[in-house]
């Protein structure tokens, strides 16, 4: 398969901060790839390098085998970025028409607006749109050029659950047309629903690159969740637990031996309520992959 986008041992420094420490990544045409990682892991930097918005400090970034700032390469790419603005005083269909004019073979305007579910807002000014509608407009602008590759940087950030669900469906619809989609997210279920390949980035390094199933299978065992008022960190020492997160009094841990862990906790007189034991999911895998490197 021809490569859509490629990072070759790319590093990026912002002053003294090393955002990427040698990332190599091949994205083939037709792939749907999710880049996962905690905030500051280097996801946005990777996307910026692939789009030519930033230049690698060392190594290389390429789009369709070209320099990413080459307009021939950019003509085949649609983009949705975090924290980018659009003119407030233009109407939705005006700005979609504007962005369509940037591309050699754009979609029909109404189709782009329909793909984003903005039909009812086509004549509204940008400044009249809600946050979620704005995100959908950015999506319309990203797809209106009928691009071969779509880059989405945290596309559902700030959306409610329902908004995210329908937005994911729209992205899936675009991917089903055989297009390449590269998205960054910190919502694991999005990666699980959309992508056939998940690239986990942490502290500027790729720590996993596999299918969602494979990543899940890396984390053997069960997830145990419960609420406890009197659990302290020391209580878990010496127990066969791989990963633990405690927020407020909600405890979550991964283990291959849930029975013996619980027996030991009961023996120590730990109060346990709202107990739940289930198979590990992608989120557990993610926490387990990143936590040993980035303890809370």
């Amino acid at each position: 398969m021809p490569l859509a986008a490629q990072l070759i041992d790319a590093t990026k420094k912002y002053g003294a901060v090393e955002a990427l420490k040698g990332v190599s990544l091949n994205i083939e045409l037709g792939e749907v790839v999710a880049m996962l990682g905690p905030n500051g892991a280097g996801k946005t930097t990777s996307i910026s390098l692939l789009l030519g918005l930033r230049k690698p400090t060392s190594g290389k970034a390429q789009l369709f085998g070209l320099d990413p700032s080459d307009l021939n390469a950019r003509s085949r790419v649609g983009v949705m970025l975090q924290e980018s603005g659009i003119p407030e005083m233009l109407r939705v269909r005006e700005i979609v028409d504007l962005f369509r004019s940037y591309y050699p073979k754009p979609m029909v305007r109404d189709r782009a607006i329909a793909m984003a579910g903005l039909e009812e807002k086509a004549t509204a000014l940008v400044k009249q749109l809600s946050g979620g509608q704005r995100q959908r407009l950015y999506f319309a602008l990203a797809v209106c050029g009928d691009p071969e590759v779509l880059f989405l940087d945290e596309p559902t950030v700030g959306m409610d659950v329902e908004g995210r669900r329908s937005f994911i469906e729209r992205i899936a619809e675009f991917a089903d047309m055989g297009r390449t989609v590269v998205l960054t997210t910190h919502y694991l279920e999005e990666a699980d629903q959309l992508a056939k390949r998940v690239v986990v980035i942490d502290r500027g390094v790729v720590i996993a690159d596999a299918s969602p199933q494979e990543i899940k299978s890396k984390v053997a065992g069960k997830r145990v969740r419960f609420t406890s008022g009197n659990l302290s960190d020391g209580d878990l020492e010496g127990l066969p637990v791989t990963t633990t997160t405690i927020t407020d009094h909600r405890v979550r841990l991964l283990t291959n031996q849930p029975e013996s862990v619980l027996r030991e906790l009961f023996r120590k007189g730990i109060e346990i309520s709202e107990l739940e034991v289930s198979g590990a999911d992608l989120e557990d895998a993610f926490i387990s992959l990143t936590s040993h490197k980035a303890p809370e």
Partner: protein
Amino acid sequence: MASAIVARAPILPMLVRQTGAEFLKLWRVPAFSITSLFLPVMFYAFIGIGQSKQQIFPGVSFGAYFLASMAVYAVANVMIFSFGISVATERGQKMDVLMRATPMPPWVYLLSKCITALAFAAMTLVVLFPFAYVAGSVRLEPSEWFTLAYRVLLGSIPFIALGFAIGYLSGPNSAVAVINLIYLPTAFASGLFFPKQLLPQFIQNIAPYLPLHFFGQLGWDAIGAPTDGSVTTDWLYLAGYGVLFFALALWAYRREEGRKFT
């Protein structure tokens, strides 16, 4: 490998769309569109009309003289404000980042802004000239109207660069203040509102070197008023300022590029 034949979108339709969008962006902000179109007319009504028939030079009425002043003021005003504020605002809202990721060449964006600024400048004249004709009873030869119009439009180009530089050097909230602090005093010092002879001596000493002074002279000469030096000198000085402002704008633009896109 993927073929390189598909290439890019045609430039002309892109430029037309971009210019249309730039125009609407400004047109729909009354703080800009109303002010640029009607502030010069209002100044003309307050200052110019009352004594418009008075002869201030042989064969030159105050009405005609002040029309030239206001034409220069209005056009330079549009150039500095439309560029300065829109560039500063768009940087503040990070619109430039999304634009940069599209296949639109950055020069299309800049050229569309220049065309829009010139269109607004021409519109201010379309409002100001008939007003001066009717309310100020200004009578000029057709060639004089024409000379005034083309000189102020052509002479405004250095101020596009100045507006651009201000847009890149100041923040979205400070651009208006910076522009007013620079533009209004120099407009006064250059004699666009009242004769320089009434200004303090130290300002009179600086005035003949200000860009708006040379720009004003081109306007006054167009309607037959006597000016210092020749028109050629005025054009040369203005061109010199143009080069200076473009260099400043380019430096500011590069500085921004270095920060945001490397």
